[in-house]
């Protein structure tokens, strides 16, 4: 089971590269916001899998909950600001 979890971690880390590509060269700024949203979803699951791998799930789940809430606040602030202001 530990080897399988290690393979899952490596696969998730490779998948982060696709979203990073979209963040770096999205044509509009909304592409970048969507890419950051995908990266944060991957990071939440990555944290929980790391917790299972090190057998400290009770600590890592709290970190991932805080990460999810911070991601909500940041993404909503950017979206509301751009909606009022228009495309730069």
């Amino acid at each position, binding site marked *: *089971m530990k080897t*399988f979890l290690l393979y*899952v971690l490596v*696969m*998730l880390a490779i*998948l982060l590269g*696709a*979203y990073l*590509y*979209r963040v770096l060269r999205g044509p*509009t700024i*909304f*592409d970048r*916001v*969507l*890419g950051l*949203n*995908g990266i944060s*979803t*991957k990071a*939440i*699951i990555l944290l*929980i*899998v790391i917790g*299972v791998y090190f057998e400290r*799930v*009770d600590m890592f*789940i*709290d970190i*991932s*909950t805080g990460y*999810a*809430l911070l*991601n*909500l606040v940041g*993404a*909503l602030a950017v*979206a*509301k600001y*751009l*909606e009022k*202001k*228009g*495309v730069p």
Partner: protein
Amino acid sequence: MNILSIIFIVAGLFFMIVSAVGVIRLPDVFSRSHAVSLTDSLGAFLMLVGIAFHEGLGTNMFKILVVLALLYILNPVIAHATVRAALRSGLKPWQKENS
């Protein structure tokens, strides 16, 4: 129990790979938001359910289900806010060019 959790985690990984391919390949913001929001939510659901099966009954399983519910509330809210901002700031949806 171990086999069940491995099956769920592999299915979740498959949907996440589909989502990453969609984020690279699709043509504009409105179609990419499907890949980020819908497919990613299903992948996260399958993966967290697999990890909850692996943990077994207890406090950790309950916490993982709370994170899952949080993800299911937050992910569509963010996608909807971003797409609405894109539509209201005057971005046109992508169309096939010679039709």
